């Protein structure tokens, strides 16, 4: 009796399984919504399309019609081929690190959903450049259910790098919605990611993103040659404090993007000297290293700079004694970590690390103010006053106050 029952259950399970195998292969078909006319408001072919070759160009299968009403196939950073048809107007972005890029390049209207959006997540500069950011729908996490995504019917989903190996992107694609996986943590990978994003979005966004890649490449090369002739003695040791918490000992590890904008500008990255793999360092190590320059980023930058000047041990460091402690600006995102604004970091860092070379090449506080204004004018279409640009350079919010003020 029992044997029969079990045999029946197993057989039933197997039948259902076989039935499942028998269903046709999930097609990468168009979503029913994608019946929009391929209206030909195609912008003039971007001159920058070919210029992307200067950075590490990812494979673009059909550079034919770029995103605007045509079909694009790109290879995302997990190595999967993703086809996007038609114009992308609704994006659900599950990776917080790229959200700021949308806001910076004026693409905030494209975002219909982000992974998490709660009060306080969008900082004041973001709200300044794109006030509607606080209203973008939250998906409740970085791995929402596929059914939920299907219900929202976006034109594109950007998945979180932590779901790269879980097959989530493919599952989304199987329902007919394109999903890309992009990931970056330094200039090179940013160039790759932005190029892919540009191909998908097309139009003005592709133009801006490609321009960014070109400019970054150019600046990095230029600064490298400016500081090429420096001997090791002339290169200051730079200690970077992350500043996301009230902790003087949290930095970034060796090999991170900090190392790039420090070394390119004639500095030596402290984490590199200390062979630091993680993000935590001990006070003893910093004291014995005695860095020449300290750069403090994050929302706690002013609090921490104040602490540096007033805490025993720290105030005896070369950097503090010689007044070589600098804050690091942030806009929609921290300049020094990644995002489109990291373009301006290259010049800013030179100003901090090798002020003489900077001065010789026309990079000064005044020129930085202009650079900030030019940047947001081009990318965002917003005009910043001298005052506002100055606030940003000083690590302040648009109204001149610090996000976390010194008590």
């Amino acid at each position, binding site marked *: 009796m029992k044997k029969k029952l079990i045999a029946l259950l197993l057989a039933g399970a197997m039948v259902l399984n076989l039935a499942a195998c028998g269903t046709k292969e*999930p097609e990468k078909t168009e979503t029913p919504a994608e019946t929009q006319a391929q209206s030909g408001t195609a912008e003039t072919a971007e001159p920058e399309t070919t210029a992307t070759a200067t950075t590490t160009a990812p494979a673009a299968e059909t550079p034919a019609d770029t995103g605007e009403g045509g079909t694009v196939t790109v290879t995302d950073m997990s190595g999967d081929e993703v086809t996007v048809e038609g114009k992308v107007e609704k994006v659900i972005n599950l990776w917080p690190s790229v959200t700021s890029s949308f806001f910076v390049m004026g693409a905030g209207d494209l975002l219909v959903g982000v992974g998490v959006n709660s009060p306080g997540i969008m900082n004041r500069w973001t709200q300044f450049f794109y006030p509607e950011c606080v209203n973008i729908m939250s998906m409740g996490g970085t791995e929402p259910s596929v059914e939920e995504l299907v219900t929202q019917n976006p034109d594109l989903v950007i998945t979180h*790098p932590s779901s790269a190996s879980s097959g*989530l992107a493919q599952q989304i694609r199987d329902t007919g919605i394109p999903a890309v996986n992009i990931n970056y943590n330094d200039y090179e990978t940013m160039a790759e990611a932005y190029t892919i994003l540009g191909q998908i979005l097309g139009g003005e966004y592709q133009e801006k993103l490609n321009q960014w890649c070109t400019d970054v490449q150019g600046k990095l090369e230029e600064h490298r040659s400016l500081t090429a002739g420096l001997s090791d003695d002339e290169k200051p040791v730079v200690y970077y404090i992350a500043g996301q918490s009230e902790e003087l000992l949290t930095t970034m590890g060796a090999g991170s993007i900090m190392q790039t904008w420090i070394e390119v500008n004639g500095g030596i990255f402290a984490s590199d000297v200390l062979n630091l793999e993680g993000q935590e360092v001990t006070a003893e190590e910093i004291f014995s290293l005695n860095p020449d320059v300290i750069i403090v980023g994050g929302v706690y930058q002013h609090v921490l700079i104040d602490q540096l000047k007033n805490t025993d041990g720290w105030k005896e460091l070369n950097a503090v004694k010689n007044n070589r402690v600098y804050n690091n600006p942030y806009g929609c995102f921290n300049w020094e970590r990644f995002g489109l604004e990291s373009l301006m970091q290259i010049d800013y860092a030179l100003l901090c690390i090798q002020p003489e070379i900077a001065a010789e090449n026309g990079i000064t506080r005044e020129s930085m103010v202009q650079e900030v204004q030019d940047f947001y004018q081009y990318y965002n279409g917003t005009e910043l006053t001298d005052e506002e640009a100055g606030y940003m350079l000083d690590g302040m919010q648009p109204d001149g106050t610090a996000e976390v003020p010194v008590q």
Partner: protein
Amino acid sequence: MILKDSPKNGRAADMKYHMILWGGAAALAFAFLLSLTMGRYAVPFSEAFQIVFSNVFPVTKTWSDISESVVMDLRFPRTVTAALVGAALALSGGTYQSIFKNPMCSPDLLGVSAGACVGAAIAILANGSSALIQGCAFVGGITAVVLTVSIPKLLRNDSTTILILTGVVVGGLMNSVMSMLKYVADTDTKLAEITYWTMGSFATVTIPELLPVLPSILIPMGVILLMRYRLNVLSLGDNEARSLGVNLQRTRGIFIFCSTLISASCVCLAGTIGWVGLIIPHTSRMLVGSDNQRMLPVSMLFGAAFMLVIDIFCRTVSASELRIGILTGLLGTPFFIFILYEQNRRLR
């Protein structure tokens, strides 16, 4: 801890058993259908029904591709997996509870889950593909159990008690290794990946992922079911089992081996899912008695149905899916307390 057996009269007990067995099967079938027709994306019930049956019988297609994709590509694999894993874990837990003569045993007593998580974490840190992560999880689980059963051999003491102790030790060791791996993981991506993987989810299981693992779940389940009478004998005690002619090491070894394969396979499919292997056999015992001939099949049915219901809840309650490992714990604990309370009340 003494557990109460079923009704005293034999015939009533028989009838009750059959009622529960068929009731369980019906509940499972219902939960299965429910799972295919419920979800965040609205598919009308009748349409979902038709879509499922169109795979076996010819039905004219009146639904959209998206609906079909949602039902067959998203819901069907996870429904089958959830039911299978629920049944498998319940069976595995019941088996351990008999072997170790302890109704508080769960399938990860010998460290299989902890070991599997370590294996998966290593693969995730090494940027492994989904298949590699599965494979490493499986190997990790098996390795942990091999370690656990080898230590008693070194100590030349093959009593069941020592086995439990070494299981705890190896489990602890694996957890420490896990902590270490989490510590060196990149906090932006890898750490989250490891944590989510560990918490358990049926969301990303696809049929191609499930098929290779199927034999290593179904075959051991079959073996355990065929041999389940021996579990009764084993639960009497080492000496008594031996005196009744049971080769203790070999029989226990087979059960542990099968159970480990099952548990390791379940973990590599869906991460760590606790409590099911503990609560379901317990509940079955309360309903149909301790005799494994009856208790285990009932456990399987209930385990499958239970898992399906929890999975439905996890993915319909909010936009972002709840992790099933969390929910089995949150729901499991009060349910368990309730069981203990009932136990206590009846004993008076």
